[in-house]
């Protein structure tokens, strides 16, 4: 057994094989991206523990993630917010985590996508489970997991074939599991969710931008619309009573310690907006939430500056529009006095 030769052959072939694999996926349009996973979220969540009264924390689902651009917000308000919104989740578990496990009393902006916000309070059901997992992970993460996350950055930033999505179901998974998922033989069970392509990129501080292809390629945008349609048809009825009461309990505690809570309804358009109006009419859901929480709320339809946008896939703003939306929103909030610029005041 000549292990030295075997080792040299193994190293050389592995290098060649992986370089070819990388080259192939780059030629297919893939590029290195970060995974919006629980580790990335936890790094931002840690900032809340040390945050001051002047800080701003963003909670919500993907609309807050896409639509609020951290650079523009910082330019306008002098504060760089902590981005804790998570795609496809309800903000209630993260809000409870901050209320119960920190003494933070600065500003929290909670994005309200009614179909997610009012969905459920059952801990194991989607869209709650993923948000809860992230909050739990933050408190339980080990030093090994922290180190692993830091070590993964150079690889994620440089290798396209390592594209990975914590959220299962993306059709763009090019790891072995994802590739095997694409193999279909027969039709033994019903087709599930339509192919769901990644349409955003996230930075280390979780600032997220819609991919330009979503704006320029209508066919691509339509694949995302189909996914919204699937969720619209298959999601269980909203549970307004439980979710409202769960949230109000935390609102009361947060306000009692001097916290500044702001609710935000980001834009949606087309079929998505129509569907939302049917299952969660503004008057019965948004207006009632604002009234019961007794906090300042911003609904995009109530402001001309915020309702001028067209969402390419009906639910999120393009990177360009998101920058404008953020600037306008920050201006309105500053004007209303719900936000202050600590650098100028």
């Amino acid at each position: 057994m000549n292990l030295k030769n075997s080792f040299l052959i193994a190293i050389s072939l592995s290098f060649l094989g992986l370089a070819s694999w990388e080259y192939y996926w780059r030629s297919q349009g893939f590029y290195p991206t970060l995974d919006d996973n629980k580790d990335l979220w936890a790094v931002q969540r840690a900032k809340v523990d040390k945050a001051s009264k002047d800080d701003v924390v963003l909670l919500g689902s993907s609309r807050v993630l896409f639509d609020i651009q951290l650079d523009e917000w910082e330019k306008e308000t002098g504060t760089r917010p902590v981005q804790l919104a998570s795609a496809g989740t309800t903000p209630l578990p993260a809000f409870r985590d901050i209320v119960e496990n920190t003494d933070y009393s600065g500003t929290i902006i909670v994005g309200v996508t009614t179909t997610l916000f009012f969905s459920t309070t059952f801990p194991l059901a989607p869209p709650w489970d993923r948000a809860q997992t992230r909050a739990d992970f933050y408190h339980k993460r080990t030093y090994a997991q922290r180190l692993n996350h830091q070590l993964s950055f150079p690889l994620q930033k440089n290798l396209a074939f390592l594209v990975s999505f914590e959220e299962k179901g993306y059709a763009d998974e090019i790891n072995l599991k994802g590739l095997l998922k694409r193999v279909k033989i027969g039709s033994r069970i019903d087709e599930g969710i339509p192919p769901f392509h990644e349409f955003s990129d996230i930075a280390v501080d979780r600032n997220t931008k819609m991919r330009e292809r979503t704006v320029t390629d209508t066919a691509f945008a339509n694949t995302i619309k189909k996914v919204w349609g699937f969720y619209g048809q298959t999601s269980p009825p909203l549970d307004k009573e439980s979710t409202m009461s769960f949230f109000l309990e935390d609102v009361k505690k947060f306000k009692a310690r001097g916290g500044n809570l702001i609710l935000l309804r980001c834009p949606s358009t087309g079929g998505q907006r129509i569907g939302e109006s049917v299952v969660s009419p503004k008057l019965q859901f948004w207006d009632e939430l604002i009234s019961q929480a007794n906090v300042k709320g911003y609904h995009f339809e109530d402001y001309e500056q915020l309702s001028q946008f067209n969402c390419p896939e009906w639910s999120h703003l393009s990177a360009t529009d998101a920058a404008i939306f953020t600037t306008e929103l920050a201006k309105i909030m500053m004007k209303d006095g719900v936000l202050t610029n600590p650098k100028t005041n």
Partner: protein
Amino acid sequence: MLLLASYVFYGMWNPPLIILLWISTMVDWTTGNKLAVEENQRKRKMWLLLSMFVNLGFLSFFKYGDFFLANFTAIVNSVGIDFHPQEMGIILPMGISFYTFQTMSYTIDMYYKKIKPAKTFLDFALYVTFFPQLVAGPIVRAKDLITQFYEPKKATIKQFLWGLFLLTLGLFQKVVLADTLLSGTADDVFGSGKVLNFWDAWSGTLAFSGQIFFDFAGYSTCAIGIALTLGIILPDNFRYPYASLGFSDLWDRWHISLSSWLRDYLYIPLGGNRHGITRMYVALMLTMLLGGLWHGAAWTFIVWGGLHGFYLILEKLQKQYIPFKITAWNGMFLAFTTFTCVNITWVFFRAREFKTAWEMIKSMLFLNTDGEKILEQFDIIKVMTVIAVLFICHWIMRNTSVKEVAEKTPAWVLGVSWAVMIIIMSIAQGNSEQFIYFQF
């Protein structure tokens, strides 16, 4: 250096729980030294009991505290006493079952004067803490490991490279075979909460069967490989168990370090085969029930152990009353039958509740004719193919070893195989953070 690295390794998970390791180390080091010089039998027994009390006390509290409380509550509630304690929510220290059994083996061997005490405290501390096998074994006996620490070790180039090969093989088993090809199907089936179709139930069970083997054998192979790169030799923990000819053979091949521990420190002290057949069966069943409980604080694990005990007793009865000669042909049939029976036990091991396990068994026996289909056709084919290849490989390899095969293989073939494993592993990526046996 190795000792410090081992503590850092364990501390990366939960630093305060290193204290448990220290206590365990101190207690057994002190006990070992006392047993080495103490001649008074009563005092020797007291020292042994002290070690047992501390080690098993920790294990009982941390691993079985919630389980005991839940069962106690159920019992008192059933007799009409309204008692609803708060859950204790105890953290299970990673690998506690492994290092507890390892330190206990040292003390018991010292008690029976089978070994000499460790030369220095640091050697003994490293024996308890040696990082490659600390959290999931193999459970190594003192005579096999401590003596290797007495002089500075440096791996030869051959050992180092073979260690790297074993590390690659172990990771390949874990990342590709267990996590990528099998775990999804097992999770979907056992987590579906539905009454399933025959094919789905069998696919889920077979997927778990393969997953747990590749996961655990993968870890053991990694541990052996890492230790070898440091010049330390650890014993084998698996020898192609799915080609076992019966259940005695299975337990000589599956998690060897645990089964030999249970044999030497539980089954034999319980009487073994020295006090007649009935006593032997009782000892066998008790050993397997406790072996089941070792794996996890739940009745499903105890049933898993009980089933293995039952199979072992049946096998002994068969050997006594209807013996037959094993040939190549009936051997394969016997191996297949053993593997099928093992799969039935895995259902109880994997299911979180009896209801799930029972429904799975019914589906596997064609009793749920209207069971739901939840798996894609490709998933079923994938699992069946992987498990068929696994079974055939175990059959072919049952009387040899990876090293023997590698020695007969041309260097370039070994190199290409090695590269294929590295490439597929890199493509698979794998984001699993745990090995299944870390929780035991």
